């Protein structure tokens, strides 16, 4: 392997272990003497627990212990927390009920944790769980987010009257109302952003371990942010002080947000390990993933757009009810508020915006971040409004967007964000060409001849990534700072270890980060190792979500590399007997300006450790530097996706015929990996738009709790995507990176629904646009066409 370059599609180094079956996921870890945990879950959406009889289960074969919420309380183990404080518009703090890891007196959703059985084998734990007798007083359940605030609805928590956690707002209501009053056209739409289950292919898992000799706990967990997990488990839940708790997130099989959060099962495993004096292992079955991992989206929204006679947008007004489920998950309150409403300006110059959001409790699984988190919901609102408005005022949807694009930067929106850079028209123009927009009429006629309906839809999205300036998010209610850390350890032989607070669970950091270091230090990539996911190795970090690991995580590495280079120059200056200001570093060599005297990076590293050539009192030996990088601003990836579909009105089957994506991610480190991120995001977005939906029945039973009922996207559902990029390098970080992990999932749902409604000739369809829904909607189209 040679020295890598920025912008090179280097093949991933981590793949060697994954393609040979040598990945090491949590379920692959076995600790000597480990016992297995099985959680008894509530079969009811809402019930009071009158009594739990554990006797028979405790004496079943192989059982080590049966534990309940009473045991947690007796050990003074605290409840799970929500780390983002939201204030309602009247200034009052959000109203949250307690969230015990094992139920205390009440269960609030199907899948809620009633007790844990720990046994020699999983089969024995399951058998014993069946012997637990729970006397439930079943209560009425509040399931529908649109109705949960109504008088007479069941109350999920006494602390939150009318099931309202907060009634929050953003923007200038008076200015927005005034804009609407002078509008020549107002578009009004009602939208449901369907509830989804993240469904990382690796189910969540945990192994808790306790060493009584040292009083140290270790938790192996499927986490996107092991450091935050340690912080929460220590400081809030009270498992052990941070110096006594090690959290390891080894290879993690996808996250998409769902593995950010600190859950009941992981908490119980690490606590129980000490209690039973054995390592305790739990691995979710897929059904448990459906029941008890945080879900995503689930908004009910009314949205309005005001335009003038020339097609310029005057204002946007939104009211959203956001389902938060039965308990507030770790970051749930931030998703429908600060990750949502600040994106409602889209790519457009909108003078006035007002958003009101009710965060509501229901007797359903907690809802939190899922790929995009808030931004797909905002993009769905904006891009559906744009398309519908263009149709209603008789403008071409591309031209209507162009008329309203933000064109000068920086651009301050009325909803917090200050866009630093972009060229929205460049992406649109490129996308129109690649999608052969001009040929659409011809293709529509061809489809019509076959009795098929063809449609094309746009989505010009923007997202806020690179989360986030710590002070800014602190002022908005975040409980943590959102910087990132890095440490560069140069070994005496010139090999390098990078310790990062980012965590990879599919993103390919081991390659991309090593590529950056290789290019910067001029050393071959195989001389660079990336270390992450272990709190004993990396001291502190904030983890990976919100497309932040390039923009924030790599910026931290750059900052630490700057320090390494500065120190190495000092060492080189001593060795080369030159002044420090005359030392240049290029292509892995330190040279004295204007001479051929020089040393390689490795030679300087060795000298730094040997420390013979300089006075140890003047210059410290060694070559190891750390950095914390706090971003200056969010980054704003943007782009245009164009979907083209063909619908068979007889069957309702929608075929995605073409997909064009033009994204502006700023500078790309590894285009191959970036494209992969876009592919995956698009597939998840198409899944949301056409297939996926988590459905609870009226009693609160999750009727889509397996792959038999929850329609996961398959290979057959997609065309080959046509992907391209434009680039306006981000001015807010040293690498010019914007972030690419969520773009596809943010952009694609409205593009697809816009395409389907274009084909149908009416707006009457909701997500997921399944064949059944499309068939129903197409009947209206067919009747209309017949009448014409």
């Amino acid at each position, binding site marked *: 392997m040679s020295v890598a370059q920025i912008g090179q599609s280097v093949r991933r180094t981590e*793949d060697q272990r994954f393609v*040979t*079956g040598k990945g090491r996921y949590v379920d692959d870890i076995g600790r000597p003497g480990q016992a297995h945990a099985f959680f008894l879950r509530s079969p009811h959406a809402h019930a009071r627990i009158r009594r739990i009889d554990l006797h028979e289960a405790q004496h079943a074969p192989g059982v080590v212990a049966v534990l309940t919420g009473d045991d947690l309380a007796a050990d003074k183990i605290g409840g799970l927390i929500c780390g983002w404080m939201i204030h309602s518009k009247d200034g009052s703090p959000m109203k949250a009920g307690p969230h015990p890891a094992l139920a205390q007196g009440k269960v609030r959703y199907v899948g809620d944790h009633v007790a844990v059985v720990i046994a020699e084998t999983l089969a024995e734990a399951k058998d014993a769980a069946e012997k637990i007798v729970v006397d439930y007083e079943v209560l009425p359940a509040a399931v529908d987010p649109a109705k949960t605030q109504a008088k007479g609805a069941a109350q999920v928590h006494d602390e939150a009257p009318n099931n309202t956690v907060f009634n929050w707002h953003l923007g200038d209501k008076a200015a927005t109302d005034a804009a609407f009053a002078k509008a020549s056209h107002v578009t009004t739409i009602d939208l449901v952003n369907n509830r989804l289950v993240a469904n990382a*292919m690796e189910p969540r898992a945990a192994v808790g371990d306790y060493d009584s000799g040292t009083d140290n706990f270790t938790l192996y967990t499927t986490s996107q942010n092991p450091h935050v997990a340690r912080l929460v488990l220590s400081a809030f839940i009270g498992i052990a002080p941070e110096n006594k708790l090690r959290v390891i997130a080894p290879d993690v099989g996808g996250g998409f947000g769902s593995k950010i959060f600190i859950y009941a099962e992981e908490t119980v495993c690490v606590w129980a390990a000490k209690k039973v004096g054995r390592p305790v292992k739990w691995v979710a079955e897929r059904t448990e993933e459906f029941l008890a991992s945080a879900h995503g989206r689930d908004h009910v929204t009314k949205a309005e757009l005001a335009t003038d006679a020339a097609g310029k947008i005057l204002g946007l007004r939104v009211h959203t009810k956001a389902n938060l489920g039965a308990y507030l998950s770790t970051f749930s309150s931030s998703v429908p508020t600060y990750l949502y409403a600040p994106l409602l300006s889209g790519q457009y110059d909108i003078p006035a915006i007002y958003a009101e959001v009710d965060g509501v409790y229901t007797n359903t699984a907690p809802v939190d971040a899922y790929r995009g988190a808030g931004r797909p919901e905002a993009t769905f609102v904006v891009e559906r409004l744009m398309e519908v408005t263009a149709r209603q005022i008789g403008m071409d949807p591309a031209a209507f967007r162009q008329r309203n694009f933000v064109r000068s930067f920086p651009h301050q929106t009325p909803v917090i964000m200050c866009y630093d850079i972009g060229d929205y028209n460049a992406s649109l123009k490129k996308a129109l060409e690649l999608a052969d927009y001009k040929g659409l009429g011809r293709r529509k006629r061809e489809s019509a001849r076959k009795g098929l309906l063809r449609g094309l839809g746009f989505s010009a999205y923007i997202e806020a990534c690179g989360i986030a300036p710590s002070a800014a998010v602190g002022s908005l209610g975040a409980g943590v700072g959102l910087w990132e850390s890095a440490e560069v350890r140069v070994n005496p032989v010139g090999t390098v270890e990078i310790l990062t607070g980012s965590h990879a669970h599919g993103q390919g950091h081991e390659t991309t980060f090593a590529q950056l270091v290789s290019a910067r230090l001029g050393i071959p990539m195989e001389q660079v190792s990336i270390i992450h996911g272990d709190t004993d190795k990396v001291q502190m970090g904030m983890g990976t979500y919100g497309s932040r690991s390039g923009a924030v995580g790599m910026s931290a590495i750059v900052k630490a590399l700057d320090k390494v280079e500065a120190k190495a120059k000092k060492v080189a200056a001593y060795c080369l007997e030159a002044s420090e200001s005359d030392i240049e570093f290029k292509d892995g060599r330190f040279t004295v300006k204007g001479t051929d005297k020089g040393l390689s990076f490795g030679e300087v590293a060795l000298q730094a450790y040997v420390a013979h050539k300089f006075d140890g009192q003047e210059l410290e030996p060694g070559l190891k530097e750390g950095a914390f990088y706090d971003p200056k601003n969010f980054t704003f990836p943007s782009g245009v996706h164009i979907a083209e579909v063909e619908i068979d009105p007889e069957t309702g089957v929608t075929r995605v015929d073409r997909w064009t994506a033009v994204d502006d991610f700023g500078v790309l480190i590894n285009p191959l990996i970036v494209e*992969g991120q876009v592919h995956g995001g698009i597939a998840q977005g198409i899944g949301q738009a056409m297939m996926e939906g988590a459905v609870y029945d009226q009693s609160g039973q999750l009727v889509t709790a397996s792959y038999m009922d929850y329609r996961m996207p398959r290979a057959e559902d997609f065309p080959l995507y046509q992907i391209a990029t434009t680039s306006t390098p981000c001015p807010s970080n040293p690498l010019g990176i914007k972030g690419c992990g969520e773009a596809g999932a943010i952009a694609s749902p409205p593009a697809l629904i816009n395409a389907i409604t274009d084909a149908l000739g009416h707006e009457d369809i909701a997500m997921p646009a399944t064949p059944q829904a499309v068939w129903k909607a197409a009947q209206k189209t067919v009747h209309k066409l017949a009448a014409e």
Partner: protein
Amino acid sequence: MTTVNLTVNGKPVAAKIDPRTLLVQFLRENLRLTGTHVGCDTSQCGACVVHVDGHAIKACTTLAASCDGASVTTIEGLAHNGELHPMQEAFREHHGLQCGFCTPGMIMTAVDLVQRKGNHLEEHTIREELDGNICRCTGYHNIVKAIAAGAEAMAGQVSAQAAE
């Protein structure tokens, strides 16, 4: 308890097991071959695909006892003498994986697909045949490309072997 005798990745294995032990449990827990994964509980995701007597099967819905006398190949048995199988190499070359969790099942399915349908695979054939394998990361785009390329490369491998 029941006794099973089978060959796993070319090595004979004999064990006394609980008759309800699934093949995937046997491989992962008894033999510590953890490359075969479990992604679901309804036999849908394909993370657990291995070959039994040369055919792809889902190890999560197969009893280990029913494989008595059979020859099992797992992802760990695909590479030879430290050299990746062409399908493994194609997944790496075409970025056909991200988190890697679905990958062993995908590769085992792909090899079986080539054995059944030949080395020149149309895009739609590959997509259709992947019905029993779910990937949440890649959007399948690069998996499809990898399988097409891997299939072609396997033809080269067969002719190279024949020439030897």
